[in-house]
């Protein structure tokens, strides 16, 4: 047990960084998820941000902040480029198309040796990412989600998720919303990729594949994407739990898998529904105290 604790403390600083990075990423995925776009493109967008920013800082001598911004913009541009065919698709087909994008980026990274180092990857990346930068990004993403949700834009997004045909009839530009949310989500992915690359000494093509995309998608789903803090809770849980389960490497992934299945089966609203359950039931009751208005409506 002591060994576990020691181990945990040793990697604590790293873990905080990872948590902050994943919170930021989780809100990026939430942007797409908020209108039912289950994107598996996150890995691809992260790779674009990571490789381009590393190229700029290591070979171009560009300032870190500019390189990160370019990484994000490049990912956003890629999202814009694939948007026309991809945004026509819904559900499973959308997932497959975004997964294909991530695969294409991975295969390019695997073969473009001169820029990406091929299968070996890039070693010796300067560690420019600082904890406070990640904290600012995570807080900014959280605030953005908070501000949008509490406005008429958030109401429109919620309506699109429920019923896009009706939303269009209300004058909401559904395609415009889907496009901007998809592109913004890619932008966040690109920035997160650039920050992640400069957090480690090394990046390789397998760092940003399907697994990365699924992980990112699972943050808001496990935390609950209906709740403002859902993506944050999901990101922290999914980042910390594997570390806590590190005492048994064989059991680690099995336990994580069981946890995911458990949440999906028993907590469809994500981990946040554990917290909001009490509040909600009280809320419902307070509605039931005023049945006269409902009855009046029924009589008419």
């Amino acid at each position: 047990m002591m060994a576990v604790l020691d181990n945990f403390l040793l990697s604590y600083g790293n873990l905080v960084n990872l948590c902050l990075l994943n919170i930021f990423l989780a809100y990026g995925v939430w942007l797409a998820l908020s209108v039912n776009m289950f994107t598996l493109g996150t890995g691809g967008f992260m790779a674009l941000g990571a490789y381009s920013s590393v190229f700029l800082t290591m070979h171009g001598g560009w300032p870190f902040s500019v390189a990160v911004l370019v990484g994000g913009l490049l990912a956003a541009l890629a999202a814009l480029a694939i948007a026309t065919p991809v945004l026509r698709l819904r559900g499973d087909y959308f997932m497959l198309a975004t997964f294909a994008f991530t695969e294409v980026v991975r295969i390019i990274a695997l073969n473009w040796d001169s820029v990406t180092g091929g299968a070996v990857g890039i070693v010796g990346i300067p560690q420019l990412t600082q904890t406070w930068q990640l904290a600012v990004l995570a807080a900014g993403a959280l605030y953005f989600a908070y501000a949008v949700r509490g406005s008429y834009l958030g109401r429109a997004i919620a309506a699109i998720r429920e019923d896009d045909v009706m939303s269009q009839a209300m004058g909401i530009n559904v395609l415009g919303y889907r496009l901007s949310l998809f592109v913004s989500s890619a932008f966040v992915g690109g920035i997160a990729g650039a920050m992640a690359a400069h957090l480690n000494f090394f990046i390789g093509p397998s760092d940003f594949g399907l697994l990365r995309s699924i992980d990112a998608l699972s943050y808001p789903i496990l935390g609950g994407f209906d709740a403002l803090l859902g993506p944050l809770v999901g990101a922290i849980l999914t980042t910390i739990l594997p570390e806590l389960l590190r005492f048994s490497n064989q059991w680690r992934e099995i336990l994580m898998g069981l946890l995911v299945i458990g949440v999906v089966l028993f907590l469809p609203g994500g981990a946040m529904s554990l917290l909001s359950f009490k509040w909600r039931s009280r809320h419902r009751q307070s509605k039931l105290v005023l049945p006269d208005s409902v009855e009046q409506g029924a009589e008419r």
Partner: protein
Amino acid sequence: MSGATLELYRIAKHFQGVVAVDSVSMVAEAGKVTGLIGPNGSGKTTTMNIVTGLYPTDAGRVTIDDVEISRLLPHQIAALGVARTFQNIRLLNEQTVIQNVMLGAHRHHGASLLDVILRLPKMARSERQELRRCDDLLALIGIRHLADVQVGSLSYGDRRRVEIARALATQPRLLLLDEPAAGMNFSEKQALAALIETIQEMGVTVLLIEHDIDFVSHVTDHIVVLNFGREIAEGTPAEIKQMPSVIEAYLGTEDA
């Protein structure tokens, strides 16, 4: 609000060989209530979906005050002042009445993304303004006391009213009602007829799609009859009820 004239000229819609709308031409005059009736499957709802841009028309054109809208997207058509309700009520059941109605006010919010992110006064101002407008609409329609009730717990008739309130919140020049009286009892239908009259008095053009010929006759004196995707008759309720083609469409012929 001032009403707009809707004109359909030979619109058509085929679904993989099935002719939903063959060729329909009609006019809904500004500020009046026009009834569009016909038996099941005669193309009423498809016609409505073409007007609101849900389906592109295969042929012909649709104009609003002589502006062609046949090639526009649904939200662009809505922005020109065309609002609708749905045959199978489409409300957000988890949300309250006022939240649903506020969705209709979406395009009238003046606040930009920057106003929203920085919480500039413009956002609060436009939110307050739209909330007041929607609240007035609820009062007009007589469901103000239900403002904070979840839509899912409302009666059928009240849900129809919420949908109409939401459509009016878009400040339409043309309102399309898709079978608003379906499933309503007698007193609910009477209340609905009074509401449609109120809407007409507001100056909004109304196109009323109905199955129930008696209800339409009660609300309007100009009716267009569809059958098999074509308009087969047009006129006042009294005229229409005399026409053999209409009687045949509704009741079938003796030797059929």
